[in-house]
C-alpha cells in the first residue's frame, strides 16, 4: 500500500500562560497600546458577565449563558472583523457582539426575555443568536455564498462550540464551504464541555480542527486563552476569505470556567481540581501580566478600568430595568412583513380587545 494523502495540524500560541512571548509577535501586537485596547474589552466582558449573573440570581433576567473564560476568544474574533463582515453566533459570544456595536443594555434585554434585544442598532446585518447547535453554520454558508456571488470583499464569521462538531449541520456546512471556496471563517471555541459531556467523550478525533481536513479546508488550532494568537489566526483566515482563498476552521482551545448556563450546576459532573487548573490559564491575567511587564499597564490603570467597567454595566443594567416591558403586540408585529388577515383576530384576542 502507498500513502495517498498526509496531513498535519498546526498549533499557535504566542503568549504562554505566564505571559511570556513564545513565538514572534504579529505586527498588530508590536504596539502595546493596541493590546491595551483589547485588554479593556476583555475586562468589560467579565464585568458584564458578573453583572448578568447577579441579575439572574436576583430574578431580574432569565437563564443566562456565561462567557467566563472566553474573553480572549471573543475579543480576538471581534477585533479581527470588519464592520461589513457578518457575524453568526451562539449564545456565548456576547463579547463579540459588544465589540461589534451591540449595547450592554440590548444584551440585558435579550437575556431578560425581550426580542428587542436582537433588534440592535449596531451591526444591523449580523444574525441573531442561534441557540440550536450548528444550524447557523448552514446560514453562514448561504451568507458567504451571497457575498461571493456579488463579488464583495466581505466574509461571514461563524462561531461554534466543540459540541457543534458532533452535528451533521456542522459537517454539511464545512463541506459545502470548501466545495465552493466560500469567504467564511468557522471560529470554533473548544471549551472542553458540551454541557456535561467532556471533549474526550464527544469524539475520538485527536483535534477538532482536523475535521476541516475532511472538508478540504484550511484549519489550525490556537491557544484560545491567548488573545494575540486568536487575533492573528483570525486576521489570516479573514485575509484568505476576502482574497478568494476560501474558508478556514480555527479551533480555539479554552475552558468554560462557568456552568453551562445559570440553570446548570457543573459541580455535578466536573472535577473542581480541573476547574482550578483552568483558572491558571485565565486569558485576562495572561494579557495583564504581559502588559505590566511591558510597562504598558499598572495598578492605577487597572483600578480605573474596573471602576469604569462597573459603572458602564451598572448604568446599562439600570437602563434595561427602566425599559417599559413589551406588550403582547410584540408577538405579532414582526411575524410577517404584513400580518395575514387570519391573524388579526388572534392578535386582538391576545391584546384583550376582541
Amino acid at each position, binding site marked *: 500500500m502507498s500513502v495517498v494523502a498526509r496531513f498535519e495540524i498546526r498549533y499557535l500560541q504566542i503568549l504562554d500562560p505566564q505571559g511570556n512571548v513564545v513565538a514572534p509577535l504579529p505586527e498588530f501586537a508590536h504596539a502595546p497600546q493596541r493590546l491595551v485596547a483589547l485588554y479593556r474589552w476583555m475586562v468589560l466582558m467579565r464585568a458584564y458577565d458578573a453583572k448578568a449573573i447577579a441579575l439572574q440570581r436576583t430574578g431580574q433576567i432569565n437563564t443566562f449563558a456565561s462567557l467566563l473564560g472566553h474573553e480572549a476568544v471573543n475579543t480576538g474574533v471581534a477585533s479581527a472583523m470588519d464592520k461589513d463582515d*457578518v457575524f*453568526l453566533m451562539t449564545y456565548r459570544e456576547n463579547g463579540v457582539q459588544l465589540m461589534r456595536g451591540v449595547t450592554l443594555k440590548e444584551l440585558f434585554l435579550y437575556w431578560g426575555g425581550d*426580542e*428587542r434585544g*436582537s*433588534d*440592535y442598532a449596531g451591526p*444591523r*446585518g449580523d*444574525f*441573531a443568536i*442561534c441557540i*440550536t447547535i450548528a*444550524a*447557523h*453554520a*448552514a*446560514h*453562514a*454558508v*448561504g*451568507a*458567504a*455564498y*451571497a*457575498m461571493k*456571488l456579488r463579488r464583495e470583499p466581505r466574509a*461571514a464569521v461563524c462561531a461554534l462550540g466543540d459540541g457543534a462538531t458532533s452535528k*451533521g*449541520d456542522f459537517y*454539511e*456546512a464545512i*463541506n*459545502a464551504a470548501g*466545495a465552493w471556496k466560500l469567504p467564511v471563517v468557522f471560529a470554533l471555541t473548544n471549551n472542553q464541555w458540551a454541557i456535561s459531556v467532556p471533549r474526550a467523550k464527544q469524539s475520538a478525533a485527536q483535534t477538532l480542527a482536523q475535521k476541516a481536513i475532511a472538508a478540504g479546508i484550511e484549519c489550525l488550532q490556537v491557544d484560545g486563552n491567548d488573545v494575540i494568537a486568536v487575533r492573528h489566526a483570525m486576521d489570516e483566515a479573514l485575509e484568505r476569505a476576502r482574497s478568494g482563498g476560501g474558508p478556514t476552521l480555527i479551533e480555539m482551545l479554552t475552558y468554560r470556567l462557568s456552568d453551562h448556563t445559570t440553570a446548570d450546576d457543573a459541580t455535578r459532573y466536573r472535577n473542581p481540581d480541573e476547574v482550578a487548573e483552568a483558572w491558571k490559564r485565565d486569558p485576562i491575567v495572561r494579557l495583564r501580566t504581559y502588559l505590566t511587564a511591558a510597562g504598558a499597564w499598572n495598578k492605577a490603570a487597572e483600578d480605573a478600568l474596573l471602576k469604569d467597567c462597573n459603572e458602564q454595566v451598572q448604568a446599562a443594567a439600570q437602563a434595561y430595568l427602566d425599559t417599559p416591558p413589551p406588550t403582547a403586540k*410584540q*408577538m405579532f*408585529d*414582526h*411575524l*410577517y*412583513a404584513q400580518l*395575514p*388577515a*387570519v*391573524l388579526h383576530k388572534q392578535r386582538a384576542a391576545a391584546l384583550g380587545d376582541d
Partner: protein
Amino acid sequence: MAQITLVEAVNLALKREMERDPAVVVLGEDVGVDGGVFRATLGLIERYGPERVIDTPLAEALITGMAIGMAVEGLKPVAEIQFSGFGYTTIDQVVNHAGRMRHRTQGRLSCPLVLRMPCGAGIHAPEHHSESPEAMFAHVPGIRVVYPSSPRRAYGLLLAAIRDPDPVVFLEPTRLYRLFKEEVADDGEALPLDACHTAREGSDVTVAAWGAMVHESLAAADALAEQGVSAEVLDVATLKPLDLDTILASVAKTGRCVIVTEAARTCSFASEIAAGLAEEGLLSLLAPVQRVTGYDVVVPLPRLERHYMPDKGRIIAAVKKTLAFG
C-alpha cells in the same frame, strides 16, 4: 398562449423571476446541469449560469439553511428539495430559523425564501417519494404553505411566492406535473397568496381540496353533475395562512362540506378546516362535515397506492353522505 404542463409552468415562473430579479437564485440537488430530476429547472443553468443555478452537495438541511443565510443577506433563493420525503430534515431549519428570523429580530432581518418540494403520491415511486407533509409545515408560525393544483395556478402562485417577503414552502403535486396541459400566459402576473380559489361553482355541497386532490374533486364534481348534484370545488391553494372566510362563505351557500386530502387522517389539514367550520360555520351546516383522507398508515409502495389515495369514488360517497343526512 402556450399549452403547458404544471412542471413546465414551474419552469416558466422560475425563468420569468430570474430574468426580472437578479437577486433570485435557484439551488438544490441536480437542479443545474441535470435540470432537476423532474426537469423543473431545465435550461436555467444555460441561461443564468452556475453561480445562480447551484448544484448543491447532497444535504437537504444544508440547502434549507443555506437558503436562509442567502435570504438574510439579500438574495431571493428558491431551493428545491428533491422529494418532500427528503424534506423532513429541513424541518429544524424551517421551524427554528426561517419562520423566526423576522420576529426574533423584530423586523431587523427577514427571510424571503421559497422551499419547493415535489410531493404527494400517485406516480408509482419508491418509498419516501409519495409523502404529503403539508400539515406539518402548516403548523409552523411565520411561514406560508402554498400548494398549486394546475399549471396556471403553479405559475401565478410561484411568482407570488418568490416575490413574497417571507418564507414560503411551495408544495408541488408530482402526480399533476405532466398529467394535463393548460394555457398559461407568461405575463409575469402573480396570483394572490392567502386566498382560496373557486375551481368550480356549485350550490349543493362544497368540496375543499388542494394539490392533486383538486383534480380528483373536479372529476367527482363532473360525475355528480350528471346525477343532478351541483358541487362547488374550492382550491385552498394557500394552506397557511388559511383563507377560512372563503370556505365559510361557500358553506353558507351550500350547507355541506367535504374536505379532501391525500395525507394521513389524524391532524391532517382537513382536520384544521373541519375545526374552523365547527367553530365559525356550524349554523350554516345542514350535515356533518366529511373528511376524505389518506388512512393513518404508512404511504404504501406502488402496488397498494390506489387503495390508499382518495379518489373520485370516495369523494362522491362522502358527498352523498352529506346529502343523505337528516
